[in-house]
Structures are given as structure tokens and as C-alpha cells.
């Protein structure tokens, strides 16, 4: 198997290490001046594509991101990791938080029409909204087989064998191509871009387009009513002995 063309998605999200703060209007989280980076699951997705390219299974990797102008940096990172060219579907700054999985899946289905890839790899979910829907929606729209939450992907005889992480164990499935897969964290260990590759990435092309160009209506279908901080953990209490512990647990209705 060789010569596949792959479309990979990557999203710019608030960096995993940042302490999230809720906006004063309780309709979202603070993003201004906050460090952003590539969604970690998308790093797995790109890494997998790059490894397939190193194994000569893949010929070309196109990376696409929907988001504000800064998403270009995320695309650049993917290019530095080894993707060949980029597509930036730009949405106005501020509206990107409202970009929901349905809209993204529609955008990707248009990109598939345009790019005609043999395989689409996405991250299983983005760590900002944790929706875990885009892959499934996209596979449905395209009527392609899907392999979600992949932790191993093997290509042979025009098919992919995918090991999925499911509740209580692993499941191996075999899908025909073209297909859509979503990457889980254990799929691989994403590489860091090396400095020479960062410089090379500067010369790779990023094509710009908008949802309107693609004929996609991104009006949100869901309305966010309220965003709240998780409850603050209550301080613990020390008990002198086991019997007091049992008492306390009973008191609180845990026994």
C-alpha cells in the first residue's frame, strides 16, 4: 500500500497547562493573553500521518485548521512536524469559540470534496470543548467508514486495521479506504518540531479560505447559557480512629 493522500485536522486550543479562568459574563473562558497551542490529540493525528509517510504508505499530508488568524501558527507547527501543506479556514476572531463540531465537520466534508484524500485523521476530541463529535459527524456526512479513538493503526492490502480503546478493553476493527479515523493519546508519541524543520515549514504553502468560500453556514446550533468553575474541593478532615470514621461516613450518608 502506498501513495495515499491524507487530510489531517488540527485545532488551536488553550494550552493544556494553562489554568482556565471563566469569563466575568459566564458565557465562556478567558482567552486573551492566554497561551494557546495545538490540541494534543491533533498532534497524535499529525504524528501518525507523518509516520505513515516515513513508511511510504502516505504520499502527501495536507493539514487543515478552522479558526482565527492565529490558527496559522498551529498549522505552521504541523508543517514543521512534517505535513506538506496547509489549509486555513479562517473565521473572525472571537467567533471561533462558537465554531461547533457540526460546522467543522461540514467544512471538512467540503475540504474532502476538494482535496480528495484517501484518509482523514482527526484528534478524537479537542481539549477545550471535549465534544468528541467531529470525526463521527464527518464520517456520516461522507458515508465513509470510521475508526474512532485509535491507539494502533496498521495499513495492509488497501485496508486499515485499527485498535480502538473502548470501555474495559481494546477492539480491533478493519476498515476499507477511504476512511475517517480519530487519534487517541496512546496512538503514538508526537515528535517535536526540529529547528531545521521549523525553518523549512516557513516555505510550505498555507492556502487561505473562509467558510463562505466553501459554502458552509457556521451559525451555531447550540447556545451556551452558562459556564461555571468546577466546585472547589472541600478541605478534608482528620479523624482519630476507625470508629469515628465509620460514624462520619454514616452521618454523611456514604454507608
Amino acid at each position, binding site marked *: 500500500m502506498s501513495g495515499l493522500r491524507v487530510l489531517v485536522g488540527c485545532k488551536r486550543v488553550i494550552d493544556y497547562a494553562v489554568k482556565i479562568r471563566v469569563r466575568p459574563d459566564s458565557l465562556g473562558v478567558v482567552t486573551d493573553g492566554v497561551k494557546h497551542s495545538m490540541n494534543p490529540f491533533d498532534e497524535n493525528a499529525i504524528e501518525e500521518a507523518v509516520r505513515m509517510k516515513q513508511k511510504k504508505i502516505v504520499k502527501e499530508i495536507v493539514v487543515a485548521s478552522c479558526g482565527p488568524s492565529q490558527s496559522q501558527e498551529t498549522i505552521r*507547527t504541523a508543517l514543521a512536524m512534517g505535513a506538506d501543506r496547509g489549509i486555513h479556514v479562517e473565521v473572525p476572531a472571537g467567533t471561533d469559540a462558537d465554531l461547533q463540531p457540526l460546522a467543522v465537520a461540514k467544512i471538512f466534508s467540503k475540504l474532502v470534496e476538494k482535496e480528495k484524500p484517501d484518509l482523514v485523521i482527526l484528534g478524537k476530541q479537542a481539549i477545550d470543548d471535549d465534544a468528541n463529535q467531529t470525526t463521527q459527524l464527518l464520517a456520516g456526512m461522507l458515508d465513509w467508514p470510521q475508526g474512532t479513538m485509535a491507539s494502533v493503526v496498521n495499513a495492509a492490502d488497501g485496508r486499515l486495521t485499527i485498535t480502538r480503546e473502548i470501555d474495559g478493553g481494546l477492539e480491533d476493527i478493519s476498515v476499507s479506504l477511504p476512511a475517517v479515523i480519530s487519534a487517541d493519546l496512546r496512538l503514538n508519541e508526537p515528535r517535536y518540531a526540529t*529547528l531545521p524543520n521549523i525553518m523549512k515549514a516557513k516555505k510550505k504553502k498555507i492556502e487561505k479560505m473562509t467558510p463562505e468560500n466553501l459554502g458552509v453556514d457556521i451559525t451555531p446550533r447550540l447556545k451556551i447559557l452558562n459556564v461555571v468553575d468546577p466546585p472547589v474541593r472541600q478541605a478534608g478532615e482528620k479523624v482519630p480512629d476507625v470508629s469515628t470514621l465509620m460514624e462520619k461516613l454514616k452521618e454523611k450518608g456514604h454507608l
Partner: protein
Amino acid sequence: MSLRSATLLYNSAKALRAYQPVAVACKRYLSDTSFARGIFMGELREDELFPYPDVLSEEQKETVSMMMEAGHAFFQETNDAAANDANEAIPEDQLDQMRALGMYGLMVPEEYGGIALTNTMYAKFGELSGEYDLGIGIHTGAHQSIGYKGILLEGTEEQKAKYLPSLASGEVFACFCLTEPSSGSDASSIKTRAVLNEAGTHYVLNGSKIWISNGGIAEIFTVFAQTPVVDAKTGETKDKMTAFIVERSFGGVNHGPPEKKMGIKCSNTAEVYFENCEVPVDNVLGDIGGGFKVAMKILNNGRFGMGACLTGTMRMLITRAIDHANNRKQFVSNLREYQGIQQKIARMNLLCYANESMAYMLCGNMDKGAPEYQLEAAISKIFASQSAWDVCDETVQILGGAGFMKDVGIERWMRDLRIFRIFEGTNDILKLFIALNGVQDIGKKLKSAGTVGAMMGLMKSKFLPAAPLKTKVHSDLAPSVDMLRGDIAKFSVSVSEQVIKHKKKIIEQQVLLNRIADVAILLQSMGAVISRSNTAADKGDTSEITLANAWCADSHRRISVLLEEMASSDVSKIDLAILEVGRKALDANGYLAKSPVGV
């Protein structure tokens, strides 16, 4: 006495030659493109100061931020500074990762396999080794900042094509071989010699070098040696220094075991010996007899890196100290509430700010093609190494006993930082260089003015602060600008008076020269923080003005004291008394006093 004879007597060129190791690269004409040199002339050279250089394009900024991310990941996940320190080595497989990451060819043009960073981009990336592991910084710096920098700066096309690709990839390492057992600061006194063979095809190289960073692991050596050169005018043959590119494979190159050191232990330091090593004539680097210039050009060109690197160190140390001060409770509250601690934290911040401002002004100006920056480079090197040391010292103090504990991880920084005040020109020698360079410029000015009277008139006209600046400076910075204008004027007059007073002998007045250099360094730092905070304010961020004003006010106070000391005959007497103690102790071969308990 006519000033003419006074200044001729004080032949500044000769005076400077005594400090050749650092002085020769200094051009012999009055330059008006250097802010630091202007200070001595009593001029506040606005055009050199404003605006603060902003040399990175948006695209370059994005590139640097991606590089920094890759670098942080490497230092956090792969490199273990404490282990490198304990093992006194960098693991072999980690060197491979560093090669893959591309850390060895940062400034090499792309056609030779490097990534062609500008000085400013290189400087920013260098902050990482400052933040995480100075030993790694020295290993990579000895390779590319001095090891093969000569090939980059002075190499022929053939030399570049032959050597740069494998150096840029890190396939082979380079080192810079100047220092010898009897020749450190006085670099022009090296004894290593290279003599052309009879066939005229090779130079035969003999001699030994000590304390060469990467000396034990390098394949390519930039070596400085004396070569017999015939003077075109006199026909006499004299030894002059020449630079060579030497390959280990030429044969006759050996090295000693890795030196045991106080710090930067993972960087290899070794003696290197050349025994009848045959170097093809094509491997002369630069001109025959022009080796000293090559050496100085390399060192000069590399100095900006230290200021940036140590910014990373200081910023990290400040965070550590603040973290402790905010969390450690003693007596009634956390340390943060006590003035003693606040003062230390403030001082650390201001030192870092002044250092960072000078470092990035220097490399920004280098990127803009500034023709003349050796004073600025020397000032930045001195200031960076001294202030990083001071910041580290205060960090240990704020952490108390914890600061002394190995596991807490500050003591390694103290050990690693100590060398920075010594190598690449000791701070002491560089101070003499700065002072003498300025004194030389003043000497020339005095000479051209003709008479003492005319000269003093010229100077006095500058005694009052010059006219307001052409540049529109933020109004909140006005007090700092006034201090800078006034202090530059007073400084120039004061140094001129000393030049007239001491004439040629000023070269021996090291206590005075040190004060002169200290003032010049402070003035340079004031200029840099004013420029930087003003440019930030122009862009809408006025927050740095507080830092700049605090630094300038404090520097102004210290300058006033130094200028007073320079002019005061009482202080001169005190200096003499102190020098006398030193001389007596030297004569006595030891401590001068007997034990007060009589045994």
C-alpha cells in the same frame, strides 16, 4: 605645557596595545556611530539610542516562538542539568537529539546546512540554555559562537563549503584555541608557532593550548599561532599571530583528559597539543599575520550571546526567589512582607532589566549592521556576568539554608555562573579596555583642540546638559533623560581632566580606570533602559517606565559618588593608602597582620 605634547606623550595607541588582548580590534579613528563611545565625548548620541531596535519581522517572531517551544520541550523532557553536572558529561544519545533538533548550526547560512538565524534570534534561543543548563550553553557556544565562528566570519568560500555543513549538523564539533599556559589575558603573547615547510605547502604547527572548551571532543580547531612574517617596509622578519583551521585528522593533534571544574561540568574542557601538525596553506583563516584581529573579531562578535543567555538565568532565578519569598513564613508573615526582601527582589529585577535591555540593544544593532559595537559588547559581557552572579547570590540568600542545599538546585547555578566573569576576556581586563578606549578617544580630541584652554572650553560647553532631545521621549521618563544628559556631560569633563592630569601614565591608574569603566557601564545601561521603556511606551505599554526610572535614579546616585571619588584628592589619598597595603602584603608573601591572640 602644550596639549599637543601632552597628548602625544600619552600615545593612546601604545597605551591600548598593553591591553592588546581586547583592544586591538578597536578602530583607530573616532567613531560617531557608537553610543558608548559618545559617552566619553560628552555626547548623547540619540540616533544610536532611539528607537530601541525592533528587528524581528512578524514571521521571524513566529519562528522564534516555535523554536522556543521546541527548545523548552528539549530542556524539560530530555535534558537533565543536575545529572549532567553530576556525571560531568552529556549523554551520547542526547547529543544525537541535539543534532536532530538542529542546535549546532544556528547561525550558519542555509546553503551550508544551518538555519541562518539573525543575532537577535540566536540570542533569544540562547536564553534557553541560560534558563536550564549553562553547561549545555557552553558546549554549544564553544562550538558555534567561537569554535567555527571564524570560518563563518573570515572563511573563504572554499573553507565554508568544506567545513560548515558537517559543523552545522553537529556531525563534528569545533573549538577555539587561544589560551596557553603562559598566555591568558595577554593573548598576544602566545608561544604556539606555525612555520611554513620548505615546499611551501604546509605550516608545521607546534605548541600547547589549555582550558579549551570542547577541546577533547572537537574535530575542527580554530588555532592561533605565531608565524614569521616579513615586514614589507623594514624587511625584518617578526612573529605575528595567524589563525588556522586545523583538523584532528591532520595528525599531531592530541588532547588531555577532561578538566575537573567548579561548574559548567558537562562541557568538555581540555588541554590540546599540537606536535608537528601539518596544516595545508589553504587552511590559513583570514590574513597571514592577521590572526589577532581574527581572534578579537570572533570574541567581539560572540559577546552579545552572553547577555541574552544570562537573561534567561536571571529570570529563572528571580522566579525561584520570588516563589520562596511568597511562601516562606518567618516571624509574623511571609518573607515577601519584609523590606529587606523587597529590596533584594527589586534589585534583581532591575539588574535583569538593565542587562536584557543592553543585550538586545546590542544584537539588534548588530542585526541592523552597526559598524561599531565593541565597547557595547564589552559592557554587555561585563554587566551580564556580574549581574547574573549578584542575582544568584541574592537568590541563595533569600532561600536561606535551602539555597545552599544541592537538591534545591540553586547552588549549581552559583558554580556554573562563576566562570562567566573570567572567560571570553576577564571583566577586569574588559573594564580596562573600555576605559582606555574612551581615554584614547578623548586624547585625540584634546590633540585636535590644540590647547588646554580651548579644550576645557569645549568640554565646559558640554558641562551643562545638552539641548533637549530631538526624540520625543515619554514625559514620565524626563527625569531619567535629564540625569543621563547631565551625567554624560560631567563624566566626559571629568575623564578629560584625568587625561590631562595623568597623561601617558593614566594607563597605570587602574583604580581610576575602573571607576571610569564603572561609570561608562552605568551610563550605557541608563541609555538602554530609557530607550527600551520609551519604545515600549510608544507602543502603548508604559509599565516599564517604572523600572527604567528606578534604575536610572539609582545609577545616577552611584555615578555621582564615582565622579566625586574621581575628582577628590582625599579619595586619591585613601586609594594610595589601600594600594600600599596591597603592595606590602605582596612583598610579605602573605597576610600582613599577626594573630591578635598572640599564638
